[in-house]
């Protein structure tokens, strides 16, 4: 298994993901600097949270044009698994590796809190360890996490079961009241049609250790390792 975490200038969850992966699996991922163009084959490449390039212009917009992204696009076509968390998700939509885009939260403020998610598709590389409709408690921390796409795309996402996580309450009710940022259909995470690229706003790396107040992220990392190995 080979895993890389991309470090953009302004990334700040790179160490956190590395830490969580190490904690859950014992494996220590490599870091890839954003200026790299040639690098070895990886089974999984992670775009971490943070503020790549200061998130100036638009979140993830400059990141999507960084030198490494060309290579990552190529590799995603070859089936390499790609995960974008938070700012990473924003980079993935800006790069068109995932459909839709992420707008400013409905309340126009940064929101950092634990929310509930429902696992809507557990038949993916990234969620197979969860039960279908399992309710998990995961933190979010973002200013631009309101997922938006047009009607046709939304239809496709639904039809192809590309919606992986939706915001809900502790009972699993998916309603607008339990939507922290105003995302369309309470969407918190999606995959591409091929199923090898995942983007999500919540941070599984922040809830993979009991001392940090939750372990619901462990199955996320375990799902991926099982898929790869």
């Amino acid at each position, binding site marked *: 298994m080979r895993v890389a975490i991309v470090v953009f200038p302004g990334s*700040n969850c790179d160490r956190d993901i590395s830490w969580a992966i190490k904690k859950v699996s014992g494996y220590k991922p490599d870091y890839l600097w954003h200026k790299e163009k040639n690098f070895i084959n990886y089974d999984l490449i992670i775009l971490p949270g943070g503020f790549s390039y*200061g998130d100036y212009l638009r979140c993830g917009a400059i990141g999507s044009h960084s030198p490494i992204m060309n290579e990552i696009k190529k590799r995603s076509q070859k089936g390499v698994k790609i995960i974008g968390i938070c700012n990473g998700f924003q980079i993935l939509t800006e790069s068109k590796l995932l459909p839709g885009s992420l707008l400013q939260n409905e309340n126009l403020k940064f929101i950092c809190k634990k929310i509930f998610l429902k696992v809507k598709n557990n038949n993916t590389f990234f969620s197979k360890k969860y039960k279908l409709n399992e309710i998990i408690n995961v933190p979010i921390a973002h200013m631009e996490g309101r997922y938006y796409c047009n009607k046709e795309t939304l239809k496709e996402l639904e039809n192809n079961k590309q919606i992986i996580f939706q915001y809900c309450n502790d009972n699993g009710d998916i309603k607008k009241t339990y939507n922290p940022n105003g995302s369309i259909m309470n969407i918190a995470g999606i995959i591409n049609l091929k199923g090898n690229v995942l983007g999500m706003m919540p941070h599984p790396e922040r809830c993979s250790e009991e001392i940090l107040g939750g372990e619901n992220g462990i199955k996320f990392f375990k799902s991926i390792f099982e898929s790869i190995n």
Partner: protein
Amino acid sequence: MEKLTNLKDLLNIHNLNNIEYKKITKILKREPNLLELGIYSVMWSEHCSYKSSKRWLKKLPTKSKIVICGPGENAGIIDIGDNDSLVFKIESHNHPSYLEPFQGAATGVGGILRDIFTMGARPIAILNSLRFGDIKKKKQKYLLSGVVSGISNYGNCMGIPTVGGECYFNEDYNKNILVNAMAVGVAKKNKLFFSKASGINNPVIYVGAKTGKDGIHGATMASAEFDNNSKQKKPTVQVGDPFTEKLVMEACLELMQTNTIIAIQDMGAAGLTCSSFEMAAKGNCGIELNINKIPLREKDMTPYEIMLSESQERMLIILKKGSEKKAKKIFDKWDLDMSIIGKITNSKKMIIKKDNSTIANIPIALTEKNTPEYKRPWVKPTKVKNIKKFIFPKKNKVKEVIFKLLKSPNLTSKKWVWEQYDHMVMCDTIKPPSYGAALVRVHGTNKSLAMTTDCNSNYCKHDPFIGTIHAVSEARRNIISTGAIPLAITNNLNFGNPEDKNIMGQFIMSIKGMIDSCKKYFLPVISGNVSFYNETNKIGISPTPVIGMIGLIKNTNSSNKKNLLKENDKIFLIGKKINNISCSSFLERIILKNNKNLGPPPPINYNEEIRNGNFVLNLFKNNLIKCCNDISSGGIIISLLKMLINKEFGAEIKESFINDSTNDQKFYQILFGENSGNYIVITNNEEKVKKLAKKNKVNLFKIGTTKKNYLNINNQIIKLNELKNNFENSFFNYINN
């Protein structure tokens, strides 16, 4: 050099008086030019020179076995064992935040973070202490929103969690808000960096953002009171760029691994001037700067503007000669400007050159040592009168009283504030903001650090001496309530105009209170900041000496599961039953709504503080505590509810706990009174706790037991949902209405 004209106006603009000007001519043995006058004005500003406070600050206890570096450097350092050291400091950005709340607060965070990583430490947490005016006023909501977004924007982008703080409202702060930011970092003990320059001909390098025209005279602005025209001072506020700072931080921490740095300092207040002077003065050497080499944001900046700019995200580094290329490579990687702007000399002078001619020539040692130092006259604050008899509500009104207090701006949950801060990034936040101190793990170790900021403004207003002792004591109780051993403090002393003898009296009594309590508790003051002139049109703020405190847990329990609350866990009061209601939140909010005088703060009982604190730590050591909170504003009931609501629990208050209070007065005093040295602990091992209390001769009273869905007090039942709603949603309503 050109001669100064209109000296009177010039001195006025530069906030220097005639005596100070004469001193300058004496040091230079001639008249200064405009650039030199500008340099002196910022160097000698209250903000940079501590000219009114210095003689008093010297009296603070600053040493202990664990102190590696006390006040005087960018931040203080203490030893936390295993070659780990802790670097922390608090600093104010009050004046700029009132003029431009977002940028003022953001750059306050940026500045304090630079102070931490400058010393070789990676920042691991940010805290703050905020004061605003009447929350019902539109202007205050605007200031609050701006300040919170500013802190959020800067800290979140840096990827450092903002884990705690306080946010307090009182009309005394209508015209002068307070924004104090604290940062904590961890460094290896053998990898610390300081600002003392040395080595003749070693290069002086400039790193980070380019110099622009922002923040010119920021330090001078922060050293004067506001008047009706203060809005015009807005251009003195700096503009922050957390993205650049993140790069500067990573690049500096990387460079620090290479053994090439002699000395390093950030450009904070008074920018390039202050940083270069301080570095040379500490090393007792000279420094020569070439103004042509400074990276500029815009063309045609004058040397005066360049030297006085407070543009953010800039560092000054003295390198070992010959290691310039190595350094350049690292800064190139991070896409940062690096420029060799001068060298260290043995002249003991600061010489600034432009186009090869000298444009400023100032003796360094003299400037540092001969800064003005004032022995300001002062008078002891008059004691406030005791509040005479008043009528307490009937016992059956307790539900209303609880709701009123839970809703009041200062006691209600500040979720609205801290949910805008990323308080979890770095994956080490064990206890996030909620109540009491935060708890943050030292990454990759078993150690964790408790941290808090504290100051009860009402107590300090009514008695600066006792109030300050309370601030130290309450911070200490916060730390102990997490199971941590208190280690050291940093302080942010916010006051009005020190030239007013009453204000100076408040300041001095506050310092005396701090000295007294720090000595009693064996707590060194390792860093701090003084902010005077928090005053508008001659009306100053209440004295606000904010205490930042850190404590250590050596072996953190990796599992919290057994500490989850269950129904019928036992709730105990540690300490005497309270009979003081003077200066309490109860008195302020329920009885004397518009009264300026709330009576003297509760007396301090050091013996109770120390004995009870040790006992709580002892209970933690024996794994007998599920959760703990100290008693402060709002008394037992509010302190208990803050903790319980957070854990989705209610409680049944034992009749016998309030039964001996046959009248209304006693009932309310016990439940809502405030004093010193008290804690509430929740345990599932009643017998052992009782036994230990007896052995340690500690007062222990059973308050009641935990209940899942309600609070029962004096046979009045309040649903948990109602409590929660009043506590957690009220602040949102204040903001939105």
